[in-house]
């Protein structure tokens, strides 16, 4: 019963019920109109025929007198065509006609009556209904002219029955159809909400059922599933990040704590000053890591997209080259600039600048010639395949094929680079900023070195 009540509350059922009511009312109206027309029209016809006959007989009476009328009535009564006649004297005795006696209600001067009467059929006596006009003639004689209306009544009854059946069936089919439709719909909705409840309980691997009909519910389930894939991916990332953070933040914190504790224990001013000094440096490192994490989170959250403005990528690259040129030159290296003018994208200037500094910083750290230790960095902007593209390349040791996917993950530092300062977040931020700008980043072998190409889809 609970399930039935639930079906009744569904929007499908409500819609079906409304539709059913509208359908029933209009069907009823059409059938009612047909019924009314048929019945009334038939009665009208009968009445007209009777009226005409009464007029005719009254005329005969006036012209041929009592005997003439008697004769005609006797004549007509013989025909077994459903016509009813009765001619009586002033005490009500039959003089002619096929009725046994004056029907009840045939009192007064004249008028319409309807009455039951018996007839003889092949199957024995039968009760019929007649409609008649009665008329009092001079001298107390009474004339009754009528028609058997059993057929007409039967027709009306048949129409009435058909009408009620039609309405009844429409109602039954409508209600059960609505019920089935809503139950089917409800079952699918129920399975979707049951799945979401499982997911809420913590099982993120669960997916919404898809029937394959590609109807609106399937499409809803499909987009929910896509959303779940995204969420699951993010959650997995989060889990990994939290354990990485736990490691990468806890280690320096532990180191700091040990150092401060040891310095307190020795109580010597010199040791304490040294401990404080290195604690301060380590705190700055930690803060830098923390800020980088926040920037990545912000870039990945995608809120910054609301503040996107047109950014001239070419100008930004030129500014970057101007900012970095002195330091590269001081190292004896080369900063090569290949800029197609006015390559524009919609973006966040600060984040794009940070993306570039992270890549250039990386090239400065790892893009040095293994023998001469001199950095060679090239910055390039161009429209490639009609897409604004930024390429930053170096001639350093590069990244092995197997590591290229991994390096953009948070806190991942390759063995080769462990000794250089850094927190393993630079490329993660780059990846986050690229994603924010709906771009695609490809790391390639520059033979030798690393080539980072970023295509923006704006």
């Amino acid at each position, binding site marked *: 019963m609970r399930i039935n009540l639930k079906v009744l509350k569904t929007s499908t059922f409500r819609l079906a019920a409304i539709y059913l009511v509208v359908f029933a009312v209009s069907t009823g109206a059409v059938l009612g109109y047909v019924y009314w027309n048929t019945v009334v029209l038939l009665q009208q016809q009968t009445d007209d025929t009777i009226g005409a006959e009464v007029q005719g007989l009254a005329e005969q009476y006036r012209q041929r007198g009592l005997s003439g009328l008697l004769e005609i009535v006797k004549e007509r009564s013989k025909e077994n065509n459903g016509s009813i006649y009765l001619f009586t004297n002033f005490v009500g005795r039959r003089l002619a006609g096929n009725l046994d006696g004056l029907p009840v209600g045939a009192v007064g001067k004249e008028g319409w009556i309807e009455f039951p009467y018996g007839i003889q059929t092949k199957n024995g006596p039968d009760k019929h209904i007649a409609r008649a006009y009665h008329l009092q003639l001079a001298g107390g004689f009474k004339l009754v002219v009528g028609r058997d209306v059993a057929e007409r009544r039967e027709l009306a009854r048949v129409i009435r029955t058909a009408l009620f059946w039609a309405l009844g069936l429409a109602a039954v089919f409508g209600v059960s159809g609505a019920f089935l439709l809503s139950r089917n719909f409800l079952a699918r909705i129920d399975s979707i909400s049951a799945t979401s409840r499982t997911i809420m309980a913590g099982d993120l691997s669960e997916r919404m059922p898809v029937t394959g009909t590609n109807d609106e519910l399937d499409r809803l389930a499909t987009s929910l599933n896509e959303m779940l894939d995204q969420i699951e991916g993010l959650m997995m990332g989060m889990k990994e990040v939290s354990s990485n953070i736990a490691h990468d933040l806890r280690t320096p914190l532990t180191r700091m704590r040990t150092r401060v504790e040891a310095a307190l224990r020795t109580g010597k001013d010199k040791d304490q000053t040294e401990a404080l000094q290195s604690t301060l440096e380590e705190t700055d490192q930690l803060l*830098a890591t923390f800020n980088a994490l*926040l920037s990545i989170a912000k870039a990945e959250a995608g809120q910054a997209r609301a503040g996107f403005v047109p950014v001239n990528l070419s100008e930004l690259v030129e500014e970057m080259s*101007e900012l970095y040129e*002195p330091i590269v030159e001081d190292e004896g290296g080369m900063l090569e600039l290949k800029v197609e003018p006015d390559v524009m994208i919609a973006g966040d200037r*600060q984040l794009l600048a*940070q993306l570039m*500094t992270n890549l*250039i*910083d990386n090239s400065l750290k790892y893009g040095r010639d293994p023998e001469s230790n001199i950095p060679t960095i090239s910055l390039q902007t161009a429209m490639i395949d009609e897409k604004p593209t930024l390429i930053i390349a170096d001639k350093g040791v590069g990244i092995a094929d197997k590591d290229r996917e991994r390096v953009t993950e948070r806190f991942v530092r390759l063995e080769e680079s462990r000794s250089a*300062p850094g927190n393993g977040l630079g490329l993660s931020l780059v990846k986050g900023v690229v994603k924010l700008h709906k771009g695609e980043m490809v790391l390639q072998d520059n033979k030798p070195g690393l080539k980072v190409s970023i295509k923006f889809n704006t």
Partner: protein
Amino acid sequence: MKNTANNSKENSNGQNSAMHILIIEDDLEAAGWLKKGLKESGHVVDHASDGETGLALALSEPFDVLIIDRMLPKMDGLTIVKKAREEGVKTPVLILSALGEVDEKVDGLRAGADDYLPKPYAFSELLARVEGLVRRKDTEPQQTVLKAQDLEIDLLTRKAKRGDQEILLQPREFKLLEYLMRNADQVVTRTMLLENVWNYHFDPQTNVIDVHISRLRGKIDKDFDTPILETVRGAGYMIRAHKP
């Protein structure tokens, strides 16, 4: 900014004299350290620990600088700045906040603050910025020639000379020098330079600023006996307006 140059705030050394500073900060320990540091730098410091008290103080007394934390009990920092500005208080405001992202910064400046420093900060950075705020207020904006010792730059012709000798500067070097000279006798941090000369609101891992400074130094100091552009250890750089 509308105030005319107020040279009474400078003594003969070109150093700022004592400033009257109001700190509105609910973290009592942080406020205590800040107060101690500013006092040691020779300033007079008042402290309020919630927004309402802070605003009342800011409205009732003339301060030289207001240092306001963003998240405060009773009234948040941005509201204090807005209300103070509505009441016609023109005192320079530095907002301190744990919300350090660039757009938060924009919110702060839009509310009427003059500078914004994300927490945690280095004290030297804060001091440089606070003193910079007062200096900014004192500088006459119409000035077209800036001078420090025998170094002179013309903001209209974009030319620089030291003594009689003209110095050729790249446009960015000129901007860098201009910023340093506008803030003469103030410590200018690397972050301040990145923000104001390059308009980048983040710190690259590589210290690119130092190289630019050393190039500039090569042009303005190398051939002369007295260096004008000094390095302040652990803080930043400073140009002295007068010979020490």
